[in-house]
């Protein structure tokens, strides 16, 4: 509850605080971006994660993707720098859906929205799309294409590889370019609507995002115990007789929540991976995994 209210407030504050430094000097609408410009953006978005890192995540590649357009929009150097600085902030989203966010953002840049509301929109839309995209593409599209491809490959047919590559990338590039143009065009006509609804859209997207993450935890985290309680000739299989009856995917849930707690505690991915490996190996040796 509180946290919820609190955060709402904070949001307001952000969107209210009108620190001048966040307003572009040149307020005249920037030049129209051509289809070529948007395509360029989409192509460059392929390098979104070139300089991926755990501090800013995709920030470097994100800015890289926007640069040509930003240069066209902000003829005034100090505005350009202002905008670039803003885009070096942490951002992380799904690499296929990123062009959707980029398109909207470029539309906002062009109409010279203040940097803060641009940043807010960027985060609000990008973050949930990360989870959604992972679910849709990494954990649904990919396994399906992979599964079909593999089944053909196991019969020794090279067609498996071809089938996989084609099926997967039709979706991939279709989305990457389609969304780029769609979002930019939409963005141009809908700036006010977007500013007004960013929060609502983000809210809706987060609902979908968290729903799928909840599903992913149960679907993709594999963790079961082999522990048993033996009593005379009677045996109780902890997993089959207790856990599964109570809550399937119990351990995956617990472990994910543990990871979550540690992440919030600020543990680095490296530490988490090490921990997981120790856990797995130790558990195996202890004979409970």
């Amino acid at each position, binding site marked *: *509850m509180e946290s*919820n209210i609190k955060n709402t407030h904070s949001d307001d504050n952000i969107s209210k605080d009108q620190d001048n430094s966040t307003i572009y000097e040149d307020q005249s609408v920037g030049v129209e971006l051509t289809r070529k410009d948007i395509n360029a953006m989409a192509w460059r978005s392929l*390098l979104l*994660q*070139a*300089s*991926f*890192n*755990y501090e800013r*995540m995709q920030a*470097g590649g994100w*800015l890289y993707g926007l640069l040509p357009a930003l*240069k066209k929009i902000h003829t005034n150097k100090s505005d350009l*720098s202002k905008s*670039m600085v803003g*885009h*070096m902030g942490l951002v992380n989203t799904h690499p296929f859906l990123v062009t959707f966010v980029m398109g909207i953002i470029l539309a906002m840049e062009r109409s010279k929205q203040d940097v803060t509301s641009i940043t807010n929109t960027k985060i609000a839309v990008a*973050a*949930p799309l*990360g*989870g959604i995209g*992972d679910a849709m593409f*990494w*954990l*649904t599209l990919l*396994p399906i294409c992979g*599964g079909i491809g*593999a089944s053909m*490959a*196991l019969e020794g047919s*090279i067609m*498996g*590889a071809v089938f996989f*590559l084609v099926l*997967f990338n039709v979706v*991939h590039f279709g989305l990457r370019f389609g969304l780029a143009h769609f979002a930019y065009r939409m963005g141009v006509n809908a700036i006010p609507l977007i500013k007004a609804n960013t929060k*609502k859209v983000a*809210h809706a997207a987060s*609902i979908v*995002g*968290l*729903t799928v*993450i*909840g599903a*992913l*935890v*149960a*679907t993709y985290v*594999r963790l079961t115990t082999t522990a048993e309680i033996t009593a005379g000739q009677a045996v109780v299989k902890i997993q089959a007789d207790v856990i599964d009856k109570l809550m399937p995917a119990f351990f*995956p849930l617990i472990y*994910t929540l543990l*990871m979550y707690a540690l*992440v919030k505690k600020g543990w680095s991915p490296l530490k*988490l*991976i090490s921990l*997981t490996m120790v856990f*797995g*190996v130790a*558990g195996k*040796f202890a004979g409970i995994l």
Partner: protein
Amino acid sequence: MEITLLQALGLGILAFFAGLDLFNGLTHFHRPVILGPLVGLILGDLHTGIITGGALELVWMGLAPLAGAQPPNVIIGTIVGTSFAIATGVDAAQAVAVAVPFAVAVQMGITFLFSAMSAVMSKCDVYAKNADTKGIERVNYLALLVLGTFYFLWAFLPVYFGADHAKGFVEMLPADLMSGLGIAGGMMPAIGFAVLMKIMLKNVYIPYFILGFIAAAWLEMPVLAIALGGLAIALIDFMKKPEVAENVQVKKEFEDGI
């Protein structure tokens, strides 16, 4: 069969580009189902490459980097595993056993790289401040170069020097260690989800997490169905507001009425 220097170099270069494709480009030719055959081509045994690739594809199914969290590395796993299968003629299952420790090592290596890379961000801030677009681009290109080289080495060295000793090396490792690492691999996605949750999870969204979990854990619905359900719920929520507005309006009139 002996793996020639040329072949090892070939595999290294393959790893270089596949490595970039894992995070950039994302055509996913880096997945075993395609990488396997390519390794096969280079080592002159396409058939084994296809078969092993298919097998490894299933092993790595559902393992992708989420929120930057690395699962055991699919590329080095595939290249080393397949080369080994072709070189020693063992079956896929054993190839996997050999692949795992390398895949895990690289998983950690990359994670380390992504931590180190944080350092250069401050540099980018400066470039940004000076609106130095070239600078930004340079950083990204260099980063790609570093990543690619890292992959090159991890493919070239073990294959060139290791491939034939790999078997012995692996047989030295206790079986439990291997399967323990396998188990850990199955747990890895939890890390990605945790990071995603850190980014997205506010109290108000906890209920949706629960609903998604129930649908998957008990009803065993596929992710797509659950996502659609989430979408429906989100839309209901999204379209509800106006009414309230309306109500307030009603209220307004009512006040005027006074």
